[in-house]
């Protein structure tokens, strides 16, 4: 059955794009896009890097760890930005959480 409609993103979340939102590199226009019903979004570079890691297994906290290490940047600032960006996507219906298999 369907997952929760509205998720609240935290460092514990394990987000994943829902089935109707597809992250794809558009070869013609040379940009990353999120394809969704009646909409095409153009995420920025950082958003793309984060979304590529959103597989429903890795937690937001782990993603923040990776980015903090990679860019040698303060963890707290990165965490705030990543959570805000993901929450915004979730509010628009383009992010969900992995569900437990029930059978």
């Amino acid at each position, binding site marked *: 059955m369907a997952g929760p409609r509205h998720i609240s993103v935290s460092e514990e979340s394990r987000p994943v794009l829902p089935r109707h939102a597809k992250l794809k590199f558009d070869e013609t226009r040379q940009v990353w896009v999120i394809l969704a019903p009646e909409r*095409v979004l153009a995420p920025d570079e950082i958003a793309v890097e984060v979304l590529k890691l959103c597989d429903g297994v890795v937690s937001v906290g782990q993603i923040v760890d990776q980015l903090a290490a990679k860019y040698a940047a303060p963890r707290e600032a990165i965490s705030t930005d990543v959570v805000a960006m993901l929450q915004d996507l979730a*509010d628009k*219906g383009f992010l969900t959480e992995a569900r437990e298999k029930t059978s």
Partner: protein
Amino acid sequence: MTEALTDTKTTTGAPDDGLAVLEARKSAAETFGIPLAVLAELTHRCPLQCPYCSNPVELDRASGELTTEEWKKVLTELAEIGVLQIHFSGGEPTARKDLVDLVRHASDVGLYTNLITSAVLLTKDRLSALADAGLCHVQISFQGNEPVIADRVAGLKDSHRKKIEVAKWTRELDLPLTVNAVMHRQNLHQLSDIIQMAVDLDADRLEVANVQYYGWALKNRAALMPTLAQIEETTGIVEDAQARLKGVLTIDYVVPDYYALRPKKCMGGWGRQFFNISPTGKILPCHAAESITGLEFESVRSNRSIAWIWQNSEAFNRYRGTGWMPEPCRSCEFKEVDFGGCRCQAFALTGDAGNTDPACALSPMHEAIFKQAELESAGENNRFLYRNFAGGTLETGDDGA
């Protein structure tokens, strides 16, 4: 699909203007890239007979439809030139026996696939096969929130119950669902219940699409035109629901342009960011464009590529940008905002597709048309002319009396 819903996706406003986002250039008016989304009208056959059908009054016959192989070739070509999304529509696209095949092929070549359907022909097995073939999204049209009005508008018994059933299967299969509700004078009083129905069906999106008046809908205008009071109430209901259901249900709202002061940015501008392909393979700036006489539309069956037709054909270039505009459009500060409105509506109501859309308050015909609509909306004529291949059949019985 048998409704005027194809407008909705291109008239909902700037945030969806993919061209502006992806291909930022100096002048919006002269810009045209490759469309992000294309509407494939697989067939004009449909078990429903909605009086506001967006298909042309002269429907394409089954014998002229593109074959499976022809459609596959088209889908491959679309993906190659940079189209990202394909909307399978109609008529009723599930009337095509090869739909699963076409969805699989579209997925294989990398297209995001959307099914725009009346749902009444679907079985659970077939829907499941479509999901397995890679279908990304399902949009089901509803004619009301209960069978009495809904089945009467659709001109098909038991259609509403069937739609509810298929909508539930859609969510059981974990496919995202859009409920498309086409609104007019005879069902607007159900809007609050339709919104609740969409929530109960666990839909992701709801399109509240007021009928757009050309083709079949223009023939039925007197029976469909809402009153101004209805529209004011509707806008309030939609705005309230949008706020209340944030994060639960996305609601897109299309107002009837007869009651607007400014025309809609039809199709995002003629030949600017959208085309559709008719059942027989014609490449059209919109689904109603064939109603404009004097324009020649080229076909995928010609020896020219789709990209060539899109970029060079006379029909597309005729009303592209702003150079073609007469006054009052030519000197209007909004000419790159709405591109003069809808060419098909201008043709249907003024006889010349090059005129300003009369929906615009600056059109010399605006006042007369608004008065006419107001008069019709207050009238007693509720009888439908049902859409069919025979040129339409007038409703009989008590309802239409």
